[in-house]
């Protein structure tokens, strides 16, 4: 079997110009990931800069409202920069430094990965360029300004659908051109090997913490973990340490988009096997292999592919993937804001909307929702949607 496969998904489907960079990254990561030096360097940033561990919070009012299972939030929204994305960017930025790369590029959809990348680049004195689709720039104005404030450059992408997938295309083109001095911080568990593994490992900090916290606060492992899935990094991170714990149900929530439109962003539910952005995975495509235009109210889930490991977990039925439509996510956005005083990101609101489907489960059941991000960035979108 070739490297970087999860079952039949994964691989390294990239232009030859990038092969060496991926091999170099793979080799470095394998060498240092388990060394005490790297672990303590990363841990120091996690604790003192990101603000880890993030709490496991009992959502009492929401639990009471539904009157069913106990609902807990793993509060990745409390991380520095307001989402899980920073778990990965700080790790990759350290790798980039060790590779001797002085320039960082990244793609961003909702802008959270762009902010998290620009943040660590500011701290570590790395040049930073963020590619962002024009459509996303318009709906995520605040994050664009944040990225610029942090000293990074934002390059608008107008080709194709002008969203996340096109930002990825442009990032790859930049990387092909500047590969000698540039590291590409891919923001999800997508892309060519070794990215799906590296991004998962850095995000798995949330799952590892959750395991300890659950044993301490619930006195057992949770019965169910729910997380939203675009590319799938927050979900993969929180799922991964539980994969062998077969009694823990793992639920990935994909974006169904506007329910009146044909294609949302649910690559596992509605897609088929194909190759996109470096990996063989489930993608939304035409019958001749062209990539479909997706739609979702949430920029971070508006993507026609998914991490290859998710496609594998779906195939072997270790995780279940469901679909939530825009309106259901918006309802959950308001409900959780009003019941818990926590404004969730629209991505996260998709995971929260799933609670509606399991509200009749017994009060003995403990469900953890991975609160992947906070909703400040989405207030304009929600305001406009309400108009």
């Amino acid at each position, binding site marked *: 079997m070739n490297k970087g496969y999860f079952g039949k998904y994964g691989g390294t489907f990239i232009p*030859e110009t990038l092969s060496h960079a991926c091999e170099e990254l793979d080799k470095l990561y394998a060498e240092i990931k388990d060394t005490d030096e790297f672990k303590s360097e990363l841990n120091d940033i996690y604790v003192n800069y990101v603000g880890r561990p993030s709490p496991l919070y009992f959502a009492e009012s929401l639990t009471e409202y539904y009157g069913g299972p106990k609902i807990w939030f793993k509060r990745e929204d409390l991380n520095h920069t307001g989402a899980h994305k920073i778990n990965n960017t700080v790790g990759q930025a350290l790798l980039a430094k060790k590779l001797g790369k002085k320039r960082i590029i990244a793609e961003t959809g909702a802008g959270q990965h762009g902010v998290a990348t620009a943040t660590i680049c500011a701290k570590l004195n790395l040049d930073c360029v963020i590619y962002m689709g024009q459509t996303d720039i318009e709906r995520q104005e605040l994050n664009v300004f944040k990225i610029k404030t942090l000293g990074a450059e934002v390059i608008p992408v107008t080709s194709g659908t002008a969203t996340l997938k096109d930002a990825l295309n442009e990032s790859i083109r930049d990387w092909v051109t500047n590969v000698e001095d540039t590291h590409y911080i891919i923001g999800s568990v997508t892309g060519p090997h070794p990215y799906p593994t590296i991004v998962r490992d850095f995000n798995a900090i949330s799952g590892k913490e959750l395991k300890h916290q659950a044993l301490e606060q619930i006195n057992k492992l949770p019965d169910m973990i729910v997380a939203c899935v675009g590319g799938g990094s927050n979900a993969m991170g929180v799922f991964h340490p539980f994969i062998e714990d077969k009694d823990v149900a793992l639920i990935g929530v994909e974006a169904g988009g506007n329910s009146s439109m044909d294609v949302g962003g649910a690559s596992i539910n509605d897609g088929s096997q194909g190759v996109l952005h470096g990996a063989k995975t489930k993608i939304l495509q035409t019958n001749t292999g062209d990539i479909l235009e997706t739609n979702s109210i949430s920029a971070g889930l508006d993507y026609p592919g998914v991490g290859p490991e998710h496609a594998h977990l779906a195939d072997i039925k270790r995780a279940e993937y469901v679909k939530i439509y825009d309106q259901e996510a918006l309802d959950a956005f308001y409900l959780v804001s009003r019941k818990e005083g926590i404004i969730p990101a629209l991505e996260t609101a998709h995971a929260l909307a799933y609670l509606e489907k399991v509200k009749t489960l017994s009060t003995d059941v403990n469900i953890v929702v991975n609160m992947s991000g906070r909703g400040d960035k989405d207030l304009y979108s929600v305001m406009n949607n309400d108009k």
Partner: protein
Amino acid sequence: MINKTFKNIKTNKATGFVPYIVAHYPNRDTFKEALTLLAELNADVIEIGIPFTDPIAEGKVIEKAHHKVLEDNFNISDLLDDVKDFKSKFDTPLIAMGYTNSFINPDQESFCQNAKNAGFDGFLIVDMPYVEHEMIEIIKNNDLEFVQLLAPTSTDKTITNCLANEPAMVYYITQRGVTGSGNLDYAEITENLMAIRNKINVPLVTGFGIKTTEHVNQFKNFTDGIVIGSSIVDILSKPNPLITLENYISPLIKEIKA
């Protein structure tokens, strides 16, 4: 077929001319006329780009062409009909060039069979790495040839290991960049071409950013063929594309063959 073509080129101590055009760009009729024109002007191998929504290694010119053709509802069976038609008149080898996801539908086996039956001689798949031996086997088992890309960043290990797939041709990418970029480093290119030559014994063509007779002159003695893509695709988007194309490539061919 590709091998035979290059054997003839070598026997004549010449260099091959390998133009690239995008299928059905700027429209189906002009594409067919351009294909005929290139064959009549003695192109040695012609690469036909299969349009894809996300062509990550293409510069603006070729990306735009891919998107235009898709907006015009590109149909792969029409292209295969055009190839069949062309092959009834010319024996110029044709290579389908594109991205993995365009070569595996409805499944890889059927796509290969259809392409072979239409008359394609081989595939150049930009994002299919040499380590995907099984996928490359399927191509070869359907009697199609496989073109391997190498780049300035390719390691010695890759250069040696990719030969296990027995590529019919190696395509050396002149630069770190997308198609049509203008950062040719003559010294590095000739040095790398000589190094690759020392290791491999298959036809070696060179492309990315080659547009002028001056460029051609720099490399033609170090390579078996010169690929010209972006500038041809750009011309095909202009008024009177065929006359402009002929005026543009005639001096280039003269230089390549000189």
